[in-house]
């Protein structure tokens, strides 16, 4: 299976777009290497702004560039852009309606053994509570490329989080994506898995295994945390059991968003899979995810557990 990292998909597409559209700018905070913007900076120096290690300043500068009629993309580690510069995202960008896109790379627990300082496991909770900001957690490189095309055209500010490593490419290269519309990848009747980001592929694998054992599950890729696809969530609830999986705290992320919808409209039993409220276990990202059961096997087990508990299967 083809493996690609999403940050590379982003930078390749944004450089292509910026070559034609001179209003597209990229900003980095000594992060051009980790974002993979080195070529962009070399080929389009007049559209690249280095801000040094100063995330608050970078987001403010981006808001000022937007005020001057440009379309800035601020790119750097998600852990810093979702916390260090959170107030600039809220005030200078979202509240002020400046057209700034925040691309948080190496998100979730991508940085693995670098520890909690470098993990972004609160960003969905934080960013989706800010009015005026769209939030996307894309799941593969094809989707990231399509999302980049959307972001370059959109006049709405957005926060996007991608991982660091290469992950399976499972979308057809011609697949199209609509913000606010989840992608339904499988249809089942015993339960539904709603996942985002790099948990979508393990969710698909888990659904395959469930199917082998005689349980059919729907799988949704909720890459659009905001605008959220409430219709897809209500449809998922028709199965009578919803499991959410995300590389994020179990507080306030995708699971929180889904439960906010269901608890008020169509309450059904849920399992929220994510990172527990503790200082993160140390190891590389695969080891951290495995420790917390955020794998296809882990999702499978929690799904079976849910079926037994809630559906007496």
């Amino acid at each position: 299976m083809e493996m690609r990292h999403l940050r590379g998909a982003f930078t390749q597409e944004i450089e292509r777009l910026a070559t034609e559209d001179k209003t597209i700018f990229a900003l980095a905070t000594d992060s051009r290497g980790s974002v993979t913007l080195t070529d962009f900076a070399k080929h389009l120096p007049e559209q690249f702004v280095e801000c040094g290690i100063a995330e608050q300043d970078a987001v403010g500068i981006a808001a000022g560039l937007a005020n001057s009629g440009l379309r800035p993309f601020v790119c750097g580690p998600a852990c810093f852009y979702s916390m260090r510069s959170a107030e600039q995202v809220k005030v200078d960008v979202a509240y002020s309606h400046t057209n700034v896109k925040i691309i948080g790379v190496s998100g979730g627990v991508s940085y693995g053994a670098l520890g909690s300082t470098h993990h972004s496991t609160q960003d969905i909770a934080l960013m989706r509570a800010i009015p005026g900001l769209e939030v996307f957690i894309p799941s593969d490189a094809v989707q990231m490329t399509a999302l980049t095309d959307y972001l370059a055209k959109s006049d709405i500010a957005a926060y996007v989080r991608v991982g660091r490593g290469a992950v399976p490419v499972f979308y057809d290269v011609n697949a199209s994506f609509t913000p606010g519309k989840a992608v339904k990848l499988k249809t089942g009747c015993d339960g539904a898995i709603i996942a985002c980001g790099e948990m979508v592929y393990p969710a698909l694998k888990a659904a395959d295994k469930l199917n082998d054992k005689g349980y059919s599950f729907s799988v949704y890729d909720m890459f659009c945390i905001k605008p959220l696809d409430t219709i897809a969530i209500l449809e998922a609830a028709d199965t009578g059991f919803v499991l959410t999986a995300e590389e994020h705290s179990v507080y306030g992320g995708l699971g929180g968003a889904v439960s906010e919808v269901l608890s008020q409209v169509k309450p059904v039993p849920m399992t929220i899979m994510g990172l527990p409220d503790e200082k993160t276990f140390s190891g590389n990202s695969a080891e951290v995810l495995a420790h917390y059961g955020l794998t296809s096997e882990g999702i499978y087990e929690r799904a079976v557990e849910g079926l037994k508990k809630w559906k007496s299967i």
Partner: protein
Amino acid sequence: MTTQQLIDKANEIRACALTMIFNAQTGHTGGAMSVSDILTVLFYDAMNFGPENASSPDRDRFFLSKGHSCEPYYAILGDRGFFPRSQLATFSQAGSPIIGHPNNAVNGVEVCTGALGHGLPVAVGAAIGAKRTGKAYKTFVVMGDGEQAEGSVWEAAMAAANYKLDNLWAVVDRNGLQISGPTEDVMALDKLSEKYSSFGWDVTELDGNDVSALHEYFHSDRPKGKPHMLIARTVKGKGLPFAENRPEWHHKVPTVEQLREAYTALGIKEVRF
């Protein structure tokens, strides 16, 4: 405008701002009075920015980083015709866009400010934008002196020098006070001009309540290749005999007697919206 006209306009703006604060029974009186001369010279004398070019890409950019001094800012925008002046009567009223900090839902306000330490980075972005797109507009930002303790100010101070932003003018309303007392007691700032000089800025200090000095400064030729910093020494509560240099007037609201006393001191008969 002549010097006398600028002096009169600044006092008119002070009276207007104080009346807004009195009507709303909320506001930031001290800083509003100290910054009024700076804002008056910028909006009536120095900047190429008015309602006629408010959406032109070539307009000069203005950011009020010390957003709590919004009352004279709104008073000026209303007076200049960015919105009907009568709307100043709605300041801080339920549902009004004219709230207690600059709100860019109001015509003339570029971005929302009020969380301190945000204006200079945004102004740096606007100035870089002008350089990169070949536009001749100038960018102006007004900060408070207490605000200088915010780290993001210095991130932007570094970036402004790094990018040689000689199209950027920053002003510090150096009234020497902040909400808890003198800046030098809360978090010592001096020598502020040396700090900015060492960061690579073109720094000037002058009396920020002297409109002719401000006029001279903004019309002077400045060195190329450096951002421009004006440390404007001002009096907090300027023009109000009962409020000058008193920290408690940071956000005190005048009584009706004090409002009348202020009108007399400012040479204003009445304020109508």
